């Protein structure tokens, strides 16, 4: 079909967490511009399997921008050349026939490579387990109107809650800082009445876990905000800082 593309791919191949990896070069032909980037990878993997080679391991699940699994660092940008989307939402029409595309895993000490392009993001889960929740008694849900919440707070909380934990903020940050992620998770709860009970311990413990995992320190370059597929704003980092300072003054 006309308009289809032939591409050269340089993909990070690494057998396991301990092995040293390297960039391998592959060719794919007749790629439709309407394919998603992951579908192009499916084509490449079919090709490898047919040849009897090991397919490239990469994470994916929903393929519609909501699960946050599809971590790929493409041509120097998290989730590829477009801002505010995931890799599964990236279409091949963003590339030109004959392009060379370099695909690397997220790079961070806290996100070790498991195999090829898959990384271990369980550091995020451990941070969440330190306070990214609220404690409620089970039983009947109470009437929503019993808890008046200002519309602006509800909106800000909702925007923070849009974070899908994809890790693009860490991947793109020159410091591998997780502060956009952690601040979104602290903010979404700190803004709501339900989040008040654990407010102090949440700020202290989640930040402490973030530090323990070996993420770097934010220098406010703002790259995370640009690359975040869910438009999480730097305002959340400032809010996290306030939450943390106030928590430390109080306790």
């Amino acid at each position, binding site marked *: 079909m006309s308009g289809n593309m032939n591409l050269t791919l340089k993909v990070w191949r690494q057998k396991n967490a301990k092995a040293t990896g390297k960039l391998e070069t592959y060719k794919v032909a007749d790629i439709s511009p309407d394919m998603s980037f992951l579908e192009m990878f499916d084509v490449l993997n079919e090709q490898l399997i047919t040849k009897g080679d090991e397919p490239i391991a990469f994470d994916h699940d929903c393929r519609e921008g909501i699960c946050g699994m599809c971590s790929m660092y493409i041509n120097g940008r998290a989730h590829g050349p477009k801002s505010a989307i995931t890799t599964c939402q990236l279409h091949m029409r963003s590339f030109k026939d004959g392009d060379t595309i370099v695909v690397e895993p997220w790079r961070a000490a806290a996100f070790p490579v498991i195999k090829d392009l898959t990384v271990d993001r369980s550091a995020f889960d451990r941070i969440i387990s330190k306070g990214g929740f609220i404690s409620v008694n089970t039983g009947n849900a109470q009437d929503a109107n019993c808890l008046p919440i200002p519309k602006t707070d509800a909106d800000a909380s909702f925007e923070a809650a849009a974070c899908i934990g994809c890790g693009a903020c860490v991947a793109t940050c020159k410091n*591998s800082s997780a*502060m956009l992620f952690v601040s979104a998770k602290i903010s979404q709860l700190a803004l709501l009445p339900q989040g008040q009970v654990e407010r102090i311990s949440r700020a202290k413990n989640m930040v*402490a876990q973030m530090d323990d995992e070996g993420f770097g320190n934010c220098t406010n370059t703002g790259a995370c905000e640009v690359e975040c597929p869910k438009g999480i704003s730097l305002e959340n980092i400032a809010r996290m800082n306030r939450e943390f300072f106030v928590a430390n003054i109080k306790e």
Partner: protein
Amino acid sequence: MSTTSGKFLQSSLGKKLLMGLTGLFLVSFLIVHVSINACIYFNDGGATFNAAAHFMAHNPVIRVVEIGLFVGLLAHVVQALVLTMQNNKARPVKYAVPAGNVSSKWYSRSMGVLGSLLLIFLVVHLANFWVPTKQAVFAGHEHDTFAGLKEVFAKWYFVALYMVGVLSLGYHLLHGFQSAFQTLGLNHKKYTPMIKSVGFWFSIIITLLFASMPITMHLGLIK
């Protein structure tokens, strides 16, 4: 629920707070410094400038603030070193294709390098002016700082070094000024744009003012 966080200043956010506070403190010093230096533009053979310099060298309050300034600068530099080293460790394997300038400004990613250039400049700068003034004060005789300025800026290589130092300062502030407020937790739909434009113009004006001094002195425009 138990609290697992360690000492405040050992946490990432605690260190960043110290960074931001010391940074803003140093900014306040710059305002005083540039105002005193601007006295050379009275163009009165350094009379006003030397009077201001004399006041600064002998006022007891300024002596105390001077100590605070050194402590603040030291804290800023030490903290910068610790944070930058941690940040490098947080990404042991670098990307084959590094991130370009699409998602962030080069100077926001170069605060450590800009700060280091600044530190080198500061050492030379202190040796040029601060040390001779101190020696004179301790020896108990009057120091003609203005004559010192003329002597140093007669040499082109000092003028060049000062340009590098001042330009590093300019870019350091271009990111640092607004960055400090974000670090302190001040990010607001209404005020952040104001802070950003104040920071932008402050950086430009400070840079131009400081840069103008060695140049005008070198060209002999200041008598």
